[in-house]
């Protein structure tokens, strides 16, 4: 018993001594030995990964929306851009009641129908008046997620609209014969199902205007009561006859050529595959060299989305949104971009395929000329990495 006690003390002393010494040792590590480590290792470096492909997708753009979701405006008109080609836009809008209508409204014939258009976008010749033809849409149509190549069934013309280039809010009284013809439908409880809106097409002028859902309304009045219908759906049907962009530039145009597929070959740099500390995808706007006649307005794209293209070709995961800097750079930077690149390097994702596009909600014909892949500032990813020592 006594011997065992002594042994216990002895072992205890041994380990206590060890515990005392282990954390008690003083250390001052420096960079001695750094020369013996991998000369590429230890120090972070930012490497440039060029795109392995950068090409417009042929799929038509999504131009439909409900106002709050998807496209925010409908485009209408025709413009012959001397640099980019002919674009024909047919704008479709529909309305929905904002509040429940009174019994008086439902039982009394309409005395007034007033259309208010919130015009907030203009592309084309600012010196000539645009004349649009407004027609009834005679069949149900869908807006959300619908692309610019869809067709909409149109009926009789309703009226012509003269639009000055600087117009913002325009009000038109609809013709009495149209009111009489649609009186029952407009006051019925089945308005949403029976009324399908209007389509605007160009009769003259050289511009495309945008009708924003924000303040565009259809006001219907009976003696002693009025009902306001808000714009509920928009859809732009677009056709473009393309001209080649200037040499060395890549054209992105909202509505017609807004989606570009981007691919990176992450295996070309041996450093890629280790630690990735930051990832940026960057494109550089090209110097404007397009032929632009006097008075011709051609707005430029100010923001772009970068999305990851999943294995489901219809599914995109938004990675980052970039706005143009003063020097024309779009820098897409988000931790998700780094994560996706890591996943590709890990093999849990097959390929690093991304898509840059104009946000659908913008719904414009804005353009962006960017330096193409053969230029001095091509689209590229900047990866800050560290190679292991």
């Amino acid at each position, binding site marked *: 018993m006594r*011997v*065992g006690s*002594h*042994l216990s003390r*002895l*072992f205890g002393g*041994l380990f206590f*001594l*060890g515990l005392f*010494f*282990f954390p008690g*040792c*003083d*250390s*001052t*590590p*420096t*960079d*001695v*030995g*750094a*020369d*013996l*480590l*991998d000369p590429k*290792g*230890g*120090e*972070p*470096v*930012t490497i*440039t990964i060029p795109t392995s492909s950068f090409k417009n997708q042929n799929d038509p753009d999504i131009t439909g929306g409900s106002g709050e979701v998807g496209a925010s405006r409908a485009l209408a008109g025709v413009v012959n851009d001397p640099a980019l080609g002919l674009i024909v836009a047919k704008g479709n809008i529909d309305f929905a009641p904002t509040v429940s209508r009174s019994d008086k409204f439902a039982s009394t014939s309409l005395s007034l129908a007033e259309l208010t258009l919130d015009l907030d976008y203009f592309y084309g010749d600012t010196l000539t008046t645009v004349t649009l033809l407004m027609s009834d849409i005679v069949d149900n149509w869908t807006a959300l997620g619908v692309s610019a190549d869809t067709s909409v069934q149109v009926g009789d013309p309703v009226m012509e609209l003269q639009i000055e280039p600087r117009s913002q809010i325009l009000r038109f009284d609809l013709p009495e014969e149209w009111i009489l013809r649609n009186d029952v439908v407009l006051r019925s409880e089945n308005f949403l199902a029976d009324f399908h809106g209007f389509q605007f097409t160009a009769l003259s002028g050289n511009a495309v205007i945008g009708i924003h859902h924000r303040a565009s309304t259809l006001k219907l009045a009976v003696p002693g009561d009025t009902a306001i219908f808000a714009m509920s759906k928009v859809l732009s049907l677009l056709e473009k006859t393309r001209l080649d962009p200037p040499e060395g530039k890549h054209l992105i145009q909202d509505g017609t050529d807004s989606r570009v597929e981007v691919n990176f070959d992450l295996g070309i740099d041996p450093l890629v*595959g*280790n*630690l*990735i*500390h*930051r990832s940026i995808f960057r494109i550089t706007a090209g110097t404007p060299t397009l032929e632009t006649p006097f008075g011709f307005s051609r707005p430029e794209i100010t923001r772009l989305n970068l999305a990851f293209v999943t294995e489901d070709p219809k599914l995109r995961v938004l990675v980052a949104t970039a706005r143009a800097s003063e020097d024309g750079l779009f820098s897409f*930077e988000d*931790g998700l971009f*780094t994560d996706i690149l*890591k996943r590709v*390097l*890990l093999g849990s994702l097959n390929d690093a395929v991304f898509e840059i596009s104009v946000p659908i909600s913008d719904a414009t014909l804005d353009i962006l000329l960017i330096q193409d892949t053969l230029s001095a500032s091509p689209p590229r990813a*900047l990866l*800050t990495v*560290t190679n*292991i*020592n």
Partner: protein
Amino acid sequence: MNHKRVMTIPSGTDYRAGRILLLGIILFFATAHSNSGYAQSSTQGTIYSRFGLGERVDFSSSRSQAIGGGAWAFRSADATNYANPAVLSDIVIFRFTAAVELQSLTSEATGFEDSKLSAGYLKALQLSFPLVAGKVGIGLTSTPYTRIAYHVEQSGSFETEPGDGNFLPFGSTSNGNGGLHRISSAIGYAPVKNLSIGVRADIIFGILEDVQDTSFGSPFFDDGLLTESTRLAGVSGTFGIWYRKTRFLSQGDGIYLGATLTLPSSLTGERIVTTGRGELIDTLSSVNVSGIGIPLSGSLSIAYQKSSRITLVLDALYEGWSKVNNEGSFRRFPENSIADYRDRYRISGGVQYGGGSPNESYSRRVLLRFGVYFDRSYISPAVGTDINSRGLTAGISLPTVFSGTTVDMNFDIGQTGTTENGLVRDRYFKFGFNLNFGERWFRRVKLG
């Protein structure tokens, strides 16, 4: 016929021995386990452990540590010699040893500020016991085979984008952990009076881990941790022979000659590269590795016991690393790094002075040990430049009130490498604290 029945039973003391044995076995596997995972308790040591399988570590006994790391032909009643399995035939009592080592290291290189590093770890657990006293003995040991423990801190700034002229500070730490561990079981047998043979089976296993940790002073850059872990395992075998002759030159002297041969073997395992910390770890790659070579090695040793109080030893070790070919891609090895394999040589010599019977005074029973050694490393980061270690050792063995039990304190001061050719010179001081427990485990009693 009048037969005397003799059988072996535990004595009263043997129950204590049983407890010690149980403790030893628990510690044995605990040490083995700890060394197979994240290994030693500190990541601070020589940068040369960055290459190959790590820094070779030898520990055959507490006594050996104090006599230049050799004394492999030497036997005595107060210590077990585990280096040569043949010598196990000579043991007569149960022995258990626990060894702890503390190390202080100063690394210097031209153009750099000295790096001061320190580490401490449980170095070995050993036990031995006779099956037939003086004729057949068993030894079990758990010791490191290699050790990886380096720590390099770098800092600086880098251009955040090529050509933009903006520089951001960063800190980078490279460190290594782990190493290979060796669990051995050996048996020694003395078929004739002066000659013994022995064999030892080694299980070599462990994890070689290199870690790269990079941090920034900016929220726009993610800090990063990259870990490359290689788990390896294999088996090896060692044969030993031991010859001793007493009354060699005089009545009270003796000479001991020993030799060992360890067969080459190869290790297999898996290499995993991960990034991230804690629960946010991503595996970047996982590949099987095989054909990681352990070379043929051999040793020759001689000990001359001039009297019961003075013993001289001389030992030489060879490991044929230059003939090792590793298969596959492995960044630590010569095929994929700047490092160069070469044969390892180790020569050591020393003297032990003192010792006496329990009846003598305490001061006479104290053992003093001194030694010197030269060791050419098996790997060098600079082709054509040897990485040599030279050192002086000393030790004192203090008897305790328990017969057969000693506390040994050993010291090793030396240096490794050179500051020429961009290399690093390590000046080190090692302190070894060893508990050697020994007592008669079984005794023969007459029955009937």
